């Protein structure tokens, strides 16, 4: 006791930290804040620490040079014992962190916790979200494989569209006009020094405010926030029906953080690290680049927008979204906190969540670009060629060699930009197919200039055979009338094109 106590006292006399810590740990919070709903913020912070620790370990091996980055990740994956696991934990930690930060934000929004006097806590939180996304994106670039390379390329194209200063922005980000050695150094600096430094600092400010202002009380319908009375009301609540922050509320944070860490480890063990995929060699075009999870929705939104709206959307939407988030606590700094009395807020949150889920789902399952390597691997299902004539067989060759597969599925393989063609003959007559192939339209390129007339005929002959055995191919009503001797034309079905 005595020696330890003396050492402790020596430090305490100089640091004088015991008082503030004791105050932070034991301060009273309203009893009802000890809720399982209030655990996401601390989990986000736990994940941040996990990322810092695993990040430092990774940086011991990673070589931030364009020539060696990819190689060094392969060394981690295959040569250093458990190196792959370290990469996997860092990657899954990042996914979880993005998710937890978003959930935390949604919960804070739903509980009205951003209202007076916690406006600045929310504002700092918005920047923490942006920084977290910045970490996820710059981390993806450091992987420096094909996905990273093309993902960054697309990001840069987006940036280059900023009026007037687009070029300079790109130059600043890439360290030159193109993705090269300097690019990786810049992103390394961003990912390892600038963003995490800011992130840790702002996280500290954020937590400081949470401790100082107290954990948001459980929202009750009718308990309305007024600037003049709120603080007194809150203090009374914390005093009359309060419990010390530690351990009263804190144990739930600990349990949840532990569970999240365990989930990260399990994902890492079972699903492994992400990549590195193919080498980041721009001359290798056999690749289907896909952005990492948090950015998928942007790509699917972009791929559904008409081209004329792309630039305005890219430039205005992010600024509008950030401005909207920052404005929240200032627009509604007083009033009801309970979701029972805030239908607009609940509706807005639901809309955003559903839209986000839908677009992410689309991004996951619908290629937002053609499948550039689909054609070379996937054969035409044998059953489609069993009855083929020589011309049909040639049509099938052309179908493969012109890479219709990039955008169209057949037999369950191929792109999803255009419709699957397995029963195309029931939907279009040969004339309609010919017209569509030659002139394109509705997102389909026109192939008139790239196919000779016999090639078109062969292709149409092949497409004409694509219908289920029990469903006849579509026919031109007028022609059918002529063939059947001028009777009343049968009903036209399914010419939906």
């Amino acid at each position, binding site marked *: 006791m005595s020696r330890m106590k003396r050492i402790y006292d020596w430090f305490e006399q100089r640091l004088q930290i015991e008082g503030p810590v004791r105050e932070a740990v034991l301060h009273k919070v309203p009893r009802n804040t000890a809720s399982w709903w209030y655990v996401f913020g601390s989990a986000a912070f736990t994940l941040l620490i996990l990322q810092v620790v695993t990040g430092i370990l990774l940086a011991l091996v990673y070589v931030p040079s364009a020539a060696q980055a990819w190689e060094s990740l392969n060394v981690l994956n295959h040569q250093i014992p458990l190196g792959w696991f370290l990469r996997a934990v860092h990657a899954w930690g990042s996914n979880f962190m993005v998710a937890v930060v978003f959930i935390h934000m949604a919960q804070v929004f739903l509980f009205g916790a951003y209202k007076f006097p916690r406006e600045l806590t929310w504002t700092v939180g918005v920047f923490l979200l942006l920084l977290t996304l910045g970490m996820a994106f710059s981390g993806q670039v450091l992987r420096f494989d094909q996905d990273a390379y093309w993902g960054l390329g697309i990001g840069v194209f987006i940036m280059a569209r900023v009026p007037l200063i687009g070029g300079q922005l790109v130059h600043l980000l890439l360290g030159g006009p193109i993705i090269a050695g300097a690019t990786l150094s810049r992103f390394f600096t961003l990912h390892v020094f600038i963003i995490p430094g800011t992130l840790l600092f702002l996280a500290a400010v954020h937590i400081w405010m949470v401790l100082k202002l107290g954990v948001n009380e459980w929202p009750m319908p009718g308990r309305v926030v007024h600037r003049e009375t709120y603080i007194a009301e809150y203090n009374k609540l914390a005093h009359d029906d309060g419990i010390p922050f530690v351990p009263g509320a804190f144990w739930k944070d600990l349990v949840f953080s532990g569970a999240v860490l365990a989930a990260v480890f399990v994902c890492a063990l079972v699903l492994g690290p992400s990549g590195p995929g193919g080498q980041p060699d721009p001359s290798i075009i056999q690749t289907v680049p896909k952005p990492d999870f948090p950015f998928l929705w942007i790509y699917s939104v972009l791929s559904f927008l008409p081209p004329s709206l792309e630039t305005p959307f890219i430039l205005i939407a992010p600024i509008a979204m950030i401005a909207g988030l920052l404005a929240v606590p200032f627009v509604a700094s007083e009033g009801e906190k309970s979701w029972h009395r805030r239908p607009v807020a609940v509706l807005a949150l639901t809309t955003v969540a559903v839209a986000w889920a839908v677009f992410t789902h689309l991004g996951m399952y619908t290629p937002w670009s053609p499948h550039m390597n689909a054609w070379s691997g996937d054969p035409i299902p044998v059953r489609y060629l069993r009855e083929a004539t*020589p*011309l049909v067989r040639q049509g099938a060759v052309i179908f493969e060699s012109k890479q219709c597969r990039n955008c169209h599925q057949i037999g369950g393989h191929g792109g999803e930009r255009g419709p699957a063609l397995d029963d195309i003959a029931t939907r279009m007559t040969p004339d309609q197919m010919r017209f569509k192939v030659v002139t394109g339209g509705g997102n389909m390129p026109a192939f008139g200039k790239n196919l000779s007339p016999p090639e078109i005929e062969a292709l149409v002959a092949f497409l004409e055979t694509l219908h289920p055995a029990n469903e006849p191919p579509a026919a031109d009503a007028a022609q059918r009338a002529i063939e059947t001797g001028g009777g009343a034309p049968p009903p036209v079905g399914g010419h939906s094109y």
Partner: protein
Amino acid sequence: MRLSTLVALGLPFLLAGCGQMPGEPHSPPVPPEQVTDFATLYARNCQACHGTGGQNGPAMDLANPEFQALVDDNTLRTIISDGLPGTQMPAWAQSAGGMLTDQQISAIIGGMRRNWAKPDAFGGATPPAFEQPKGGDANHGRQVYQARCAGCHSGPKRQQLTSPVYLSLVSDQALRSIILAGRPDIGQPDWRMQTPQTSGPPLAPQDVTDVVAYLGSLRNPDVVSAAPTPMPSPRR
């Protein structure tokens, strides 16, 4: 609670001792131009047109041992490297604008021979030469066609063999290869014409050349471009 964290932290190290975890990556990815495994090369580059396992595809049945016996390595290399201009068979060598290195092309040739060639594919018979010689008597070819081919190649479905649209898409050499080696996967007999439906002696070398010349003479591009033209585009 602290215990659960500890267990979670310790778990991977415990498990790492028990062999491969599902998440552990297998082997590093091989850059595409360093792949020399025949199965991979064939699946990535050829099977779309030539079919899984070299048959049942829309283009030539490469797994036919007779085809493998007819064509020598140098010819194969030229065909694969430079493609067959004017047809859909692309050039694969990097020197010709393709994606494959010379080693990879050698690996494909070696793999085809290993997997698909058979000793004595013709059972002692000597087939006509692989390459189509210049010249050839189209008139005689027509008689051969009527006598030996039309039996199977008539009727509404098979007419297309003499259709100029079809013929303008295939080379003489492809026609010759099909006649010589046959396509067991789709029911086309080889030059010996031994099937239940047909009888008679094998086609003589001159017959083969002349049938190809006949089919070639039907390949009239004027007829082809007069094929129904698509509707004009309503707007640009």
